[in-house]
């Protein structure tokens, strides 16, 4: 379960060592934009040591490596792969070939390390017009891919438009990415909200992302984590309904009925699938069914 993903600058010890208690479901150790070119080597070692020595139990580790058009990305993977990040965030993924290049190198590393194939997942960062248009092909390029990730800052630069708080300019990219990811059967995460001082803006932006179908949302500020978690946590009403759906299904089965209705609505496969996802999230969060 990843509702929130928090970016941590890869060369900042103070944030890295505290990254496991800032409340996010996942952290993204950032070796790319947050690190100056002359500090790539030091950040890589620092992030590797953080993964190796710090206790990140209960918080998923994701690493944003440098893009495959740099000479850093393989060395980034060399250092972090032994410590089994759950995902690699691959910047500037524009084509399935980009994802396959990373996949190939990761497969080789996994063999060398004696890991099972696909131990470490891949999450293409879609932040170019090309990437958006190729998003379904990218999402289904390899089994290693577990999710798509929208990066609106670079994308709007590529689109030659201004990035705004309201986000009209990324409406298409958002809906396109959600559709592509769902079609490919993977998760999809929303771009960070970048104004750290706008406490109301982040709520609206997270609610919009949830309404559009995103699995969760990333953040560059620890201050946004709590809001994102709250927005992406199923409500008690949703949880209770999910359990009712499962009860109804069980009852129908026991009675040998094929189709059943709940509150006058047919309970079909997508509704069951959604109920199962809601219950899985609730269980992961320790939220129980309200028995009232």
């Amino acid at each position, binding site marked *: 379960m990843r509702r929130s993903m928090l970016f941590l600058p890869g060369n*900042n*010890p*103070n944030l890295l*060592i505290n990254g496991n208690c800032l409340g996010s479901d996942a952290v993204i150790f950032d070796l790319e934009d947050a690190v100056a070119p002359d500090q790539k*080597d*030091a950040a890589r*070692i*620092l992030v*590797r*040591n*953080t993964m*190796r*020595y*710090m206790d990140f139990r209960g918080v998923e580790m994701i690493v944003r490596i440098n893009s495959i058009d740099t000479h850093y990305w393989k060395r980034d993977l060399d250092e972090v792969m032994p410590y089994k990040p759950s995902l690699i965030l691959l910047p500037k993924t524009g084509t399935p070939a980009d994802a396959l290049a990373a996949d190939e190198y990761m497969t080789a590393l996994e063999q060398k390390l004696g890991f099972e194939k696909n131990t470490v997942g891949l999450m293409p960062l879609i932040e170019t017009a090309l990437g958006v248009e190729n998003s379904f092909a990218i999402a289904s390029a390899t089994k290693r891919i577990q999710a798509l990730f929208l990066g609106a800052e670079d994308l709007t630069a590529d689109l030659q438009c201004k990035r705004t708080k309201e986000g009209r300019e990324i409406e298409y990219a958002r809906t396109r990415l959600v559709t592509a990811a769902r079609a490919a059967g993977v998760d999809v995460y929303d771009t960070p909200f970048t104004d750290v001082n706008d406490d109301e803006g982040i709520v609206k932006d997270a609610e919009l992302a949830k309404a559009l179908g995103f699995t969760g949302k990333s953040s560059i500020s620890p201050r946004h984590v709590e809001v994102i978690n709250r927005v992406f946590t199923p409500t008690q009403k949703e949880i209770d309904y999910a359990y009712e759906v499962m009860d109804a299904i069980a009852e129908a089965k026991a009675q040998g009925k094929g189709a059943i209705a709940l509150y006058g609505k047919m309970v079909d496969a997508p509704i069951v699938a959604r109920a199962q996802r809601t219950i899985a999230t609730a269980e992961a969060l320790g939220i129980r069914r309200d028995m009232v």
Partner: protein
Amino acid sequence: MDIKKRAAAGTMESSDAYVEIEPASQGVSLELESVVLNQFGEQIRQTVLSVLAQEGVENAKVRIIDRGALECVIRARVEAAVCRGREEA
């Protein structure tokens, strides 16, 4: 492989350490400045020596300004300084 040139890594920000390394001819010498010298001075020295040994550095002059960095951070900064010091000038 020994240190070829003077190099540094890290910062003087809180929770970080700044490490300078330069070539030397006779063994390792270590100069340490730390905000927690009384409590962790000896542990920091051991950490630095262990990274140098692991990296196979036998001769070097090392200077550290520690701002309360955790061991994993000090290890990273020493290792980064060693890597940089080994690059061709």
